């Protein structure tokens, strides 16, 4: 399919037959790809397709079991990060990788400090860092400690760091997963600028809209193998989905309207510890799916955490089914019928070292306990089996360690844990972050199904497509303040962005 490299004599980077085996999974099986000078190559694929693994190999973080790398047609062994950097290959990892105890400049130059006899030339790093921060549109002093930044800001620092490397090949592994539209746009213009300078970019994302917008070429991976390439002209949403999943995905956003029932969750004058000056009030009804939109750091996660008792509320009241409840811990929230699928699956959602079964029952095990707190193992097994089949979780058995599942299946385990509790209100914080299209679709269907059965669903998402696609109503937040509410009829990208940026009249400029 890809004949575009005929115009170039030799590709800048050529990857041939890379194989990588992890205990339990073959992450990559004879994968090949080529990258030309000055092109944006998108690599897409379902969760666990092996995208990150391939990129880590290119960046020298992991070593392949077999396969060759060619740069400008010359075979090169890449054994460690330093060598990769010497070849001009830089990787922005999927996960944030910053030292929170160091300032921005120190992070940007970590491992590449300008030195004289081992002594760091501090001044130079600050001057240079400032430039790169400006480039990515981050208005912060390079002296700021990274630990004090929001996730989105940290992601921008990662990008600034990658820019400072002045790489020939810049790999971005899901750079926008924690960025809002606004910041994403800033990133895209940086990418275009780099491309114009002749830098080659490998871009990984589950947001196919972005891929459509940016990519010159798309390489699709499926189950650790090449599943085909797409040229600029043949890139289309459906085509990409088809190649990733191996089948056509018919109705991506399965929105069906239900008549909302009575109010289940009512929040009045809520003030959160992170944003104590604003009061938040809203109500959530049965059968309703309500999205919460906003820019990075808008305070959505904070709101969810207060509702679920992770953080203490400053003031205000929360009622469930008309009954005011005092939530002091997540246990109280669960008792009141709330459930939260947290933002960070690996840090907050799962015990990675434990089995599927143990993760699945973690919340319900205390409900099903016998005398003396004895675990009801039978119930635990049955429940897990039920959830595995209901959610279509791909796992060899219920004793599989969760760590070895793909992202989407991990997310389903978290969902299963809460569905077992039959919550009245389901809180979802970025439920599809880093989840591939196939699993995304399943999650959407599940949300709609649960809502139709009477559950009230409140979900936070930074993916506007998704907010527009399945919510009955959307709440928009800006810097800790609930700036507005839009019904399904009034929803549009522009309307949401206006509220999200705190503007009420002017249109958004990017």
């Amino acid at each position: 399919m890809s004949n575009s490299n005929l115009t170039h004599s030799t590709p800048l980077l050529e990857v041939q037959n890379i194989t990588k085996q992890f205990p339990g999974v073959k992450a990559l099986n004879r994968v090949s790809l080529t990258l030309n000078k000055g092109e944006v190559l998108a690599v897409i694929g379902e969760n666990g397709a092996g995208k990150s693994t391939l990129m880590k190999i290119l960046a020298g973080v992991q070593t392949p079991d077999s396969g060759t790398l060619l740069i400008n047609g010359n075979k090169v062994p890449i054994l460690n990060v330093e060598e990769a950097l010497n070849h001009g290959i830089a990787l922005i990892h999927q996960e944030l990788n910053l030292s929170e105890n160091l300032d921005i400049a120190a992070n940007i130059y970590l491992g590449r400090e300008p030195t004289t006899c081992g002594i760091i030339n501090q001044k130079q790093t600050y001057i240079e860092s400032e430039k790169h921060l400006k480039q990515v549109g981050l208005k912060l002093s390079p002296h700021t400690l990274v630990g004090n930044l929001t996730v989105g800001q940290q992601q921008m620092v990662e990008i600034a760091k990658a820019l400072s490397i002045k790489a020939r090949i810049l790999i971005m592994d899901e750079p926008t997963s924690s960025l809002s539209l606004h910041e994403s746009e800033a990133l895209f213009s940086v990418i275009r600028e780099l491309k114009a300078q002749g830098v080659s970019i490998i871009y990984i994302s589950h947001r196919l809209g972005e891929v459509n917008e940016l990519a010159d070429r798309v390489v699709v991976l499926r189950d650790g193998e090449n599943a085909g390439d797409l040229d600029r002209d043949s890139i289309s949403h459906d085509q990409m989905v088809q190649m990733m999943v191996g089948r056509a995905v018919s109705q991506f956003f399965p929105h069906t309207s239900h008549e909302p029932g009575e109010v289940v969750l009512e929040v009045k004058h809520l003030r959160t510890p992170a944003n104590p000056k604003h009061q938040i009030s809203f109500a959530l009804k049965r059968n309703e799916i309500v999205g919460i939109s906003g820019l990075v750091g808008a305070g959505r996660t904070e709101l969810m955490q207060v509702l679920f008792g992770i953080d203490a509320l400053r003031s205000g009241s929360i009622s469930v089914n008309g009954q005011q409840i005092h939530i002091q811990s997540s246990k109280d929230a669960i008792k009141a019928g709330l459930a939260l699928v947290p933002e960070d699956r690996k840090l907050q959602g799962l015990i990675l070292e434990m089995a599927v079964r143990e993760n699945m029952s973690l919340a319900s095990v205390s409900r099903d306990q016998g005398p003396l707190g004895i675990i009801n193992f039978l119930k635990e097994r049955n429940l897990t089996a039920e959830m595995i089949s209901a959610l279509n979780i791909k796992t060899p058995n219920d004793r599989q360690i969760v760590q070895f599942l793909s992202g989407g299946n991990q997310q389903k385990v978290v969902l299963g844990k809460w569905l077992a509790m039959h919550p009245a209100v389901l809180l979802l914080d970025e439920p599809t972050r880093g989840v591939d299209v196939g699993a995304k679709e399943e999650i959407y269907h599940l949300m709609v199904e649960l809502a139709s059965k009477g559950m009230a669903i409140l979900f936070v998402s930074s993916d506007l497509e998704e907010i527009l696609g399945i919510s009955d109503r959307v709440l928009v937040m800006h810097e800790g303040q609930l700036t507005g509410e839009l019904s399904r009829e009034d929803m549009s990208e522009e309307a949401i962005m206006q509220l999200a940026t705190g503007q009420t009249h002017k249109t958004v400029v990017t």
Partner: protein
Amino acid sequence: MKKVLGILILLIVVCFVTAVSNENFFSAYNMQNVIRLTSLFGIISIGVAFVIISGGIDLSIGSVICLVGSLLPYLLVEHGFSVPAALLLVGTISIAIGLFHGLLITKLKLQPFVVTLCGLLIYRGIARGITQDETQGFGTAYKGLRYLATGKIDLPFIEGFKLPVPFLIMLGLAIVAAFFLNKTIFGRYLKAIGNNEAAARYSGIKTDRVVIMSYVICSFLAGVGGVLFALDINSVQPEGIGNFYELYAIAAAVLGGCSIRGGEGSILGVVIGAALMRVLRNSITMLGIPSQLEFAIIGVVILIGVITDELVKRYAIQRRATQQAKQNAE
């Protein structure tokens, strides 16, 4: 289970080697002694295992032993407490210590290493202050109480060999501990917290309570150990007793498969670990190795144990990988 197997084999090898070169090793008398000391150290090791599984550490065990061990005879002999009253008091003290650690660690978010390091300094200091560094003992009295530590029970079928009472205490505690760790939600929560505290909290677990509980268990079992040590040796010098015992207990737990990173561990393994430590010291005497080298040998054996464990684990992972690769190829 696999982790326990390795240490079990090591234990058997050490026993075998010692028995071959000195037939007295397996004599009823020697076995009784080894079993009694294993039981005492086993009890404190089980306690620290709970803390280690929860992802913490307790460096104060030796000092709790010292405090409880010197207070018991002090209260009984010096202050004429009744036995139940004295036991109740020292029990309460050890539980209070655990509670204190747990609260500082969970509510004030202090580091367990630091909190219990202070504990290590403080409790021994208090014991020394109270007793004025005088050796405490029961004299020839309190035979009934001392039966707990020095008593032996005839076994129906085995000639000559009598089971030391502390072994029964340890066995009871180990069974209860294993039950709690593996069959109850407390144990499940403990492991979950040891692996990922945040995820446990997000699942509605009151993590603080569980963590506090683990420190309470640890200090309480250290207190039980202190009582038994005092009853056993009948001569408690507050300045010397229990020095470094926290390290022996931690070493036994690590040998028995607890990971200092938290989340992992089995009670059976810990007990075997404690047994290995004691058998080693006994073997060193039995083999006539000079006392000076005792600790060096124990250190080397622990190190070899953990290195082998690590290498075996790596090998197993590698083997699984190649096996799967083969399967995939088919």
